[in-house]
C-alpha cells in the first residue's frame, strides 16, 4: 500500500500523506478493536472477567483501556513506517471508514445479540 515519495501527487505538497494515513487507519483499527472487545466481553464469560481492570467500572474498563492501547500502538507503528512515505490513501481511507462503520454497528446491542 506504499509507494515512494517520487510517485506522489503532482501537487507541490510539502508533506507526504503517510503520517495522515497512519492516523486514519489507526483510528479505524482502534475503534474496531473496541467494538470487538466489547462484543467478545458480552458473549464470553472468561473474556468478560479478564477485562475487569477496575472493578467498579467492570469489563468496560478493560475493553476501553485495551482498545486505546491497541490504537496508540498501531498508530505509533504505522507512523514510524509511513511518516516519510506517500501511500495509496484512497484505499486506506475506505478500510478505515469501513472499520469505523462496522464498529458503530457492532456496538449496537441488537446486533451484538445476533452472535
Amino acid at each position: 500500500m506504499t509507494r515512494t515519495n517520487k510517485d506522489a501527487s503532482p501537487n507541490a505538497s510539502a508533506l507526504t500523506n503517510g503520517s495522515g494515513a497512519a492516523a486514519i487507519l489507526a483510528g479505524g483499527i482502534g475503534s474496531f478493536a473496541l467494538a470487538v472487545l466489547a462484543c467478545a466481553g458480552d458473549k464470553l464469560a472468561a473474556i468478560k472477567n479478564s477485562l475487569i481492570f477496575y472493578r467498579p467500572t467492570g469489563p468496560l474498563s478493560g475493553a476501553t483501556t485495551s482498545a486505546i492501547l491497541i490504537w496508540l500502538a498501531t498508530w505509533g507503528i504505522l507512523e514510524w513506517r509511513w511518516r516519510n512515505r506517500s501511500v495509496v490513501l484512497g484505499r486506506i481511507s475506505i478500510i478505515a471508514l469501513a472499520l469505523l462503520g462496522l464498529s458503530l454497528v457492532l456496538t449496537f446491542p441488537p446486533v451484538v445479540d445476533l452472535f
Partner: protein
Amino acid sequence: MEISSRALWTVIHGLGFGALYLLACSGALVELYRFTLSSTPGEPTPGQERFLKFYLLAMVVLAWTAVLTGTYVIYPWYRAAAPRGKTDLSMFPQRLLMSSPATSGWHSLGMEWKEHVAWFTPISITMVAFVLIRYGRDLKNHRHLRVAVLSFAVASFIAAGIAGFFGAMLNKNAPVQGGTTIRLSRGEER
C-alpha cells in the same frame, strides 16, 4: 435549592463536557466542511489556522474528559449492585431500570450502546486534530485526507450524539443520586 454531589458530577459530565462537545462539534463540522469539500479551499490566514487548531485541541480535551468522567466517576454509581432484599432501588439506577419492563430497554439498549459508542468520539476527534495540526494549510493538497478527516469528524459527532441522547434519557428515567448534599441557595420559608 440543593443538589447531591453525584448529581453535580452528572451535570458536569453531561452538560459541562458532553453537551459542550456537541456544540463545539457542530461548529467544527461547518468549518471542516468549508475547508475540506470545497473544490478550491480558501486559504486561511495564520490566525484562523491557529484558532482552528486550538479549537480542535479544546474539543479533544472535552471528548476525553467526557468519556473518562463518565466511565470512571459516574458509571460505577450507575451500575452499583443493590444489597439483597433492598426494595427501594432509587440509589441503584441500573437495577431500578431493569426492575420494570417499561424501563429495562433504557439500560439494555441505551446504556449498553452508550458506554461503548461514546469512546469512538475521542479516538476520532484526536485523529482529526492530529491531521489538522500536522498538515495545516498543506491539507489542501491531500483530497483523500480531507475527506477522511471530515468523515471521522462526522462519526465523532454521531457517536457523541448517541451517547448524549441516551445519557439524558437514562438520567431522566433513573437519575444518579446520593453523595453529599450541596446547598446552592436558601429558599424562602412559607
